[in-house]
């Protein structure tokens, strides 16, 4: 036989270990299950009570659910009572057995015994589902007018649950509340006020805040009653029934104030009606006890939220000030809480006047900042929250310094958040670039371990956007920080190594900086003498050594290793003429070191950079140079790849962020702001083109005579090549230019033959790796640009055996059928398609190289070629080698080409067909042309 509850508790208490306890419970559970199976009715009540105990200890009790159902149907009150209690504690709202209870609940609701009905109401209030609410609401509603206050109060909250579950019912019962507000029982009053608050909240959710709905307007008429109720509470004097520390029912007062807040927000008339009573509460409430402070706290919130009188606001702000200076931590906590709530609430509407929340905030700035040093984390968190709202142009420097100080002491798990918040502050309020760069670097030295990708990206963007002098400063500072660091601040390493790679040549000189004395004379006087910043010149060996030391640590993350490789490759270029032979040699070795690495990325980078460096030095193998390109082209392109990255346009990145809405902190490179759209790999540029497809549809849709064959397929597979440069005369609809802008800025920087596409995430895994693949060697028309990023295709030479991966000039397989097809001529621009089968085993694939020939007597600008193909063809387009076409035939003029990869999935049955849209500017005239090209040999392409 199973134990008595008392004995079970005793046994559990005497257990010395958790295992012992588990054994006792397991044994008892088994006994209870048996009892349930054998339908031992007399023990049911006791068993459920035991289950409640076991449930509290955290053991499974699901097998007892049905027992509860049986108990609530019992005519015996103690059994029914335990049954309902078991139901409320053991069952979730989703439990299937719950619907079995509906009938019992209905019976009990109609019971003449008030305790039975009370139990049913309580259960409905805690557990009712939408179905139950619909079925039982009429019964619950009957109890709202019961003669017993015991039932009326329970009915109010039960009804509030019903309304929550089926919101459509609420309008039918609004008029009931008027009478309930006149009730004499405080229990009924507090419940009906909460019920009304809930209805308003639901209403606001449905109709928008302040929306005029039936309920809201009905409740607004009740404001005078509520005011009267509150006033009565204030004036009633001592009432032993509801006295708490000398205050009459603080709980009810708080609830009424909350309700008044919801009613008065955005409603002038209601606000006016409650002004007086709020003033009374604010002035007359005793503040020596906690209960009084609870009321004041609520009252201040209400005053700040509604459209209250000026004098009242002064009162509220003063109370808040008093709270802030209170020695009791609880009071300070709620003061901080209220302030941030008020500031958020006020938001845009805050006029910044002397009595607004924000002015109160500024007045108590030092107190709030002091709270950051409080030993209590709850207070610190609240203060931190407030400080973000406090920052403005004037105090940004001091407050950021405080935030950084706090960053040092705060728990690790909060650092990510703080870093991001500091970044926002720095973005918005920085007085100058130097301060911004300085702050970000300091932050990285403190929390480089924790801060997320976004912070790193922006740090780099800001450094790269600064002037040469500041870059030097940043690089010096970062190098020093890296040296001092123990190698665990990953973020610092990432940013530092990137900067050293890019600007390594700048730190070989002495650096001196004297802040301009005139600009911020006040500051410098207040603090100390203008700080004279200087760094000693470094020699290349030291620089290399520093980075090498970082990579030598076995804790060094792979991402940093990868970046260090890029850094070495770049330094090799920077130091080529400056450093001594040994250092250069060392750099070469460092790059080569990972040729046999197990990590694909490291190996790939190592091989590619080695090849790149050797090409940049002029070692061009004969097989690399094919077709019309010259060795010089190849060398120039390699040098271009190793030179500095063009500056990223911040505005474009930010716009991009808004567009894609990606502010997610992710360590994934592709989720980095802007990284997705401008990454240079082929597939990514196609992705980025997608948002523009619709615009293109319009363009094509407006075409005068679309070829019938292409028309069917015109909607979808339009790939828009991303490399088009936007010129001022570009005939693009403005909407479509978000991507173009981004790239135009990048392209406008260098005037090299093949400008590398810049990924805005400077660390995108394929930064350099992919660049040569797509652009570097593009001037060679016969080149097959093989993507060098994984996964390796059969044509990707094994990086180990063929270290020249970086040169994607893999000789095309033997005997590729090259076929040149005449395209069309427009305004002196000849277009030819050169078709090639790259893969002898996959006939579906074709590489089409478009050759542009300028037969006019002036260069053509702003070349923009867009191609649409039918659905059965997949296509990838690369940017043209140049958007300017020089006059063909003139000495030195470069051939302009553009490569398109197509795969005809229905080869044999359907032919390759392309709809081409061509745009360019000739002698100042914009020219647009639309043409269907179907002259490809049937069955072959």
């Amino acid at each position, binding site marked *: 036989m199973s134990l008595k509850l008392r004995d079970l508790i005793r046994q559990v208490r005497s257990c010395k270990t958790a295992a012992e306890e588990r054994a006792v419970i397991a044994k008892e559970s088994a006994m209870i299950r048996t009892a349930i199976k054998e339908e031992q009715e007399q023990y049911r009540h006791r068993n459920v009570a035991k289950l409640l105990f076991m449930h509290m200890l955290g053991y499974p009790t699901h097998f007892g659910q049905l027992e509860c159902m049986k108990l609530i149907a019992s005519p015996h*009150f103690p059994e029914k009572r335990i049954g309902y209690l078991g139901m409320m504690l053991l069952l979730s709202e989703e439990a299937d057995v719950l619907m079995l209870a509906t009938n019992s609940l209905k019976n009990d609701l109609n019971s003449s015994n008030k305790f039975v009905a009370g139990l049913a109401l309580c259960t409905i209030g805690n557990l009712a589902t939408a179905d139950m609410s619909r079925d039982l609401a009429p019964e619950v509603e009957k109890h709202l007018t019961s003669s017993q206050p015991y039932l009326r109060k329970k009915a109010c*909250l039960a009804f509030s649950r019903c309304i929550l579950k089926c919101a459509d019912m609420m309008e039918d019962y609004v008029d009931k509340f008027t009478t309930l507000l006149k009730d004499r029982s405080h229990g009924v009053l507090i419940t009906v006020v909460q019920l009304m608050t809930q209805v308003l909240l639901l209403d606001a959710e449905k109709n928008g805040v302040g929306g005029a709905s039936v309920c809201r307007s009905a409740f607004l008429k009740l404001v005078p009653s509520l005011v009267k109720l509150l006033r009565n509470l204030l004036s009633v004097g001592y009432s032993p029934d509801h006295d708490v520390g000398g205050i009459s029912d603080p*709980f009810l007062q708080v609830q009424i104030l909350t309700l008044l807040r919801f009613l008065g927000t955005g409603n002038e008339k209601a606000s006016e009606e409650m002004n007086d009573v709020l003033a009374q509460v604010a002035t007359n409430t005793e503040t020596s006890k906690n209960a009084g402070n609870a009321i004041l706290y609520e009252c201040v919130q209400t005053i700040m939220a509604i459209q209250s009188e000026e004098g009242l606001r002064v009162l509220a702000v003063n109370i808040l000030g008093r709270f802030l200076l209170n020695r009791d931590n*609880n009071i300070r906590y709620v003061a901080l809480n209220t302030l941030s709530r008020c500031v958020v609430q006020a938001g845009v509407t805050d006029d910044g006047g002397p009595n607004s929340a924000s002015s109160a905030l500024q007045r108590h700035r030092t107190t709030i900042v002091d709270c950051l040093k409080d030993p209590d984390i709850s207070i610190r968190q609240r203060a931190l929250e407030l400080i973000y709202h406090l920052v403005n142009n004037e105090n940004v420097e001091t407050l950021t310094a405080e935030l950084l100080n706090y960053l040092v002491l705060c728990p690790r798990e909060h650092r990510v958040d703080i870093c991001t918040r500091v970044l926002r502050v720095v973005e918005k309020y920085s007085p100058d670039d130097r301060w911004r760069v300085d702050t970000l670097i300091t932050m990285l030295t403190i929390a480089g371990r924790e801060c997320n990708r976004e912070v790193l990206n922006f740090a780099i963007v800001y450094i790269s956007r600064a002037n040469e002098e500041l870059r030097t400063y940043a690089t010096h500072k970062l190098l020093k920080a890296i040296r001092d660091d123990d190698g665990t601040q990953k973020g610092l390493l990432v940013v530092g190594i990137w900067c050293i790679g890019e600007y390594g040549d700048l730190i070989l000189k002495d650096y001196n900086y004297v802040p301009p004395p005139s600009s911020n004379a006040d500051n410098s006087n207040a603090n100390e003498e203008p700080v004279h910043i200087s760094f000693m010149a470094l020699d290349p060996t030291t620089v290399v050594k520093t980075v090498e030391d970082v990579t030598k640590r076995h804790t060094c993350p792979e991402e940093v290793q990868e970046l260090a490789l890029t850094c070495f490759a770049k330094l090799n270029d920077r130091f080529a003429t400056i450093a001594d032979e040994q250092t250069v040699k060392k750099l070469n070795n460092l790059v080569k070191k990972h040729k046999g690495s197990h990590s694909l990325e490291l190996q790939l980078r190592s091989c590619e950079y080695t090849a790149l460096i050797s090409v940049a030095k002029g070692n061009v193998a004969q097989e690399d140079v094919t077709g019309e390109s010259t060795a010089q082209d190849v060398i120039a392109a390699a040098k271009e790849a190793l030179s500095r990255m063009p500056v990223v346009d911040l505005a474009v990145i930010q716009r991009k962020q808004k567009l894609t809405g990606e502010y997610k902190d992710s360590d994934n490179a592709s989720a980095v702001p802007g990284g997705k759209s401008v990454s240079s790999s082929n597939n990514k540029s196609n992705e980025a083109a997608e948002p523009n497809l619709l615009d293109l549809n319009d363009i094509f849709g407006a075409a005068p005579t679309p070829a019938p064959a292409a028309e069917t397929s015109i909607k979808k597979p339009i790939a828009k090549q991303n490399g088009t440069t936007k010129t001022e005369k570009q005939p693009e609809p403005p909407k479509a230019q978000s991507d173009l802008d981004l790239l135009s800025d990048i392209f406008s920087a260098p005037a090299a033959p093949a400008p590398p596409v810049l990924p805005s995430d400077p660390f995108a895994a394929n930064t350099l790796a992919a660049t040569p693949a797509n652009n570097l060697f593009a001037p060679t028309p016969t080149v097959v640009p093989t993507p060098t990023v994984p996964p390796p295709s059969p044509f990707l030479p094994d990086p180990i055996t063929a270290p020249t991966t970086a040169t994607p000039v893999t000789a095309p397989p033997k005997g590729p059928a090259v076929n040149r097809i005449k395209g069309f001529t427009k305004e002196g621009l000849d277009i030819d398609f050169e078709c090639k089968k790259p893969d002898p085993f996959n006939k579906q694939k074709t590489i089409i190289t478009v050759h542009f020939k300028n037969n006019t007597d002036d260069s053509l600008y702003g070349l923009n070629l867009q191609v649409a193909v039918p659905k059965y063809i997949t296509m990838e387009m690369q940017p043209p080698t140049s958007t300017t076409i020089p006059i063909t035939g003139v000495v030195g003029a470069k051939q302009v080409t553009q490569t398109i990869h197509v795969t005809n999935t229905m080869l044999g049955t359907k032919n390759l067909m392309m709809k081409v849209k061509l745009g360019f500017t000739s002698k100042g005239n914009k020219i647009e042309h639309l043409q269907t090209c179907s002259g490809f040999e049937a069955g072959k392409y």
Partner: protein
Amino acid sequence: MISFILMVNKQGQTRLSSYYQWMNMQERVALESEIIRKCLSRSELQCSFLEYRGFKVIYRRYASLFFIVGTVANPDAGPGAENNENELGLLEFIHTLVETMDKWAGSICELDIMYQLEQVHFILDEMVMNGHILETNRSNILRPLDLMDKESKKKEGMFGGR
């Protein structure tokens, strides 16, 4: 609204738990142990509020027992709504709860709660319903409970007996 009420002793053993928002067993066990750990790490002088996983927790210690109330933003106000619970008010409510229990048991101690678990739940059910405050007057809470106990013990009471 109130999301849960816990009574946990200094050793971290839960003596009573009442949830007004469903949570499965693993979640409950984790939540209870985490919160008590946080409460224990705080000194007397520190404030009685802490923030934990979206809950605002208000706690008060009486002898060896912690009374803990967890609150969340009102679910009716839609997602992202702010938690408008009055922390000081709930602190006062905890005190009322303790006073009520004190009056009920003479002088309440941990063992009273343990051995009369269901009775304490009955008291709580008279005070809180669905996460909202139902009654704060001690006699209004205890009188019906007394009556129920008395009547159900009688053979021929208002419940008919057995």
